[in-house]
């Protein structure tokens, strides 16, 4: 009996990376990651992580509230926004910000006593790739693998928890 094999073109399509688009960041902002770095991360994760993902956009205008780093928009669109060039000056860190920035960032004080958040070496790039992008891919997986419906398929709190769990596991696997 002849074994059933996937059509070659279809198999290739499942492994095709999503389109990665490089847009200009807002004035005064910079890209933390490049197209190549995003491609490398996606290839390292494998096709099961990005199946159904249509586009990854780098840059473009961020929503005008807070410092938004990334966004997942159903169906299959991830946006990684530009960031202000480091160091970031902050009045204080909220608990959530502290937890979010736990990896990589170094805290310091400037001559006026302001809190400076420094990103030495490649820490900002790693943070955006391994925390922000992986988190958004987690959102994509949950949304996509439950029927591709254009309605929220979990409570926001559960969605965030799933995305965070996926990002943590993926980081451990990629280590």
């Amino acid at each position, binding site marked *: 009996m002849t074994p059933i094999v996937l059509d070659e073109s279809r198999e290739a399509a499942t492994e095709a990376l999503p389109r990665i688009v490089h847009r*200009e*960041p*807002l*004035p*005064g902002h910079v890209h933390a990651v490049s197209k190549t770095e995003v491609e490398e991360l996606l290839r390292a994760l494998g096709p099961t992580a990005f199946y159904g993902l249509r586009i990854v956009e780098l840059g*473009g*205008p961020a*929503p*005008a*509230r*807070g*410092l*938004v*780093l*990334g*966004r*997942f*928009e*159903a*169906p299959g669109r991830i946006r990684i926004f530009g960031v*202000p060039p480091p160091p*970031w*000056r*902050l*009045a*204080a860190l*909220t608990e*959530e*910000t502290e937890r*979010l*920035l736990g990896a990589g960032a170094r805290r310091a004080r400037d001559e*006026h*006593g*302001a*809190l400076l958040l420094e990103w030495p070496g490649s820490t900002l790039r790693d943070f955006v790739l391994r925390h*922000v992008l992986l*988190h*958004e891919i987690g*959102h994509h997986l949950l*949304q996509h693998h439950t029927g591709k419906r*254009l*309605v*929220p398929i979990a409570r*926001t709190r559960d*969605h*965030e928890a799933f*995305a965070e769990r996926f990002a943590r596991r993926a980081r451990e696997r990629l280590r």
Partner: protein
Amino acid sequence: MSTLVGDGLENPGNASALVAAASMFGWDCAFLDRAGLGLAPALTKDELLGQFSPLLALENAPGADSIHGFTFSGPRPALLVGNERKGIDRDLLQRADRAVRIPLASRRLDTINVAAAAAVALYYMTRGGGGKLRTRAEPNRHRPEVLFLGPGDAIELGSALRSAAAFGWGRVFVEDRSRVWFGTDRVMRSLGRGAARRSRNAIHVLPFPGGDRPLAGRPVFDEACVVTRGEGEPLHRVDVARGPGRLLVIADEGALDLAREDLGRLARDVRVVSLDLPRSEFPYRFKLTASIALAEAGRQVGVRLRPGGGRARPPFYDRALPLLAGHADALLVEKRGVAVALEDLPL
């Protein structure tokens, strides 16, 4: 003769701006001078009620008609605007023939500067009301970015920022070559922030590279619509509600010469659009032209459809640094013991 009437204004600066607003549209201006500021020409309440018809009150009162699509007729119309804090006198408001309001998109900021409001109202009234306010499922996807180019006065800029927030913008760029907003002295800072109602106005004000810090590489925006009081395509016939890839540029033509500006650095395509005002010569005030441009752009952007009346928005999830409680800005710095917003830092 059509007349704009200020009722009980407290600030002489607003009175002079009101004269400028009337002059832009060829209207007369008069005052009910309740505060004894010596504003001229002065009217009494009886003269106002006896000489003008129809008497139109600009007030966000219950039952007031939207300024969009508003038309009126009468031999000698008067548009009445009220005190900066209290609005129009209650008795006058009740005796006015009709009340009109300017629809605002902000929930936190429900008023704009009195002269700016008068200019916006006259803009629509003199053009026969203009088009209706649009309704959309997701108006903010159509909202262009706004750049205030070279403002020369902190108070004028502050009032323009107040209008921008009231008409629904959450973020504007300022090319601050006169240093009236960023890194300015304490007095100028207080004047500007006060005019912007910064305590309630959470708009993000971002410095736009330019002037002595030219944009590196190619322009960020696809298209820029530069608003001028001079010649150009009429603003109301140009679709400016084309999303955040488009830039609405409002220049302070009292502080810079638009003809000498290199506008090509702002966007790949640049269109010059005109406010299409009935008069070409008038005392120029930046906050008036800026508010008119923002009002018309805001009308084109529109407001959200009634809940349940439109297409559902697909879900999205943001990864963001949360705002610090009690502050409007995401990034703040404690500088010499004073909380300073990111926008105030020399970036």
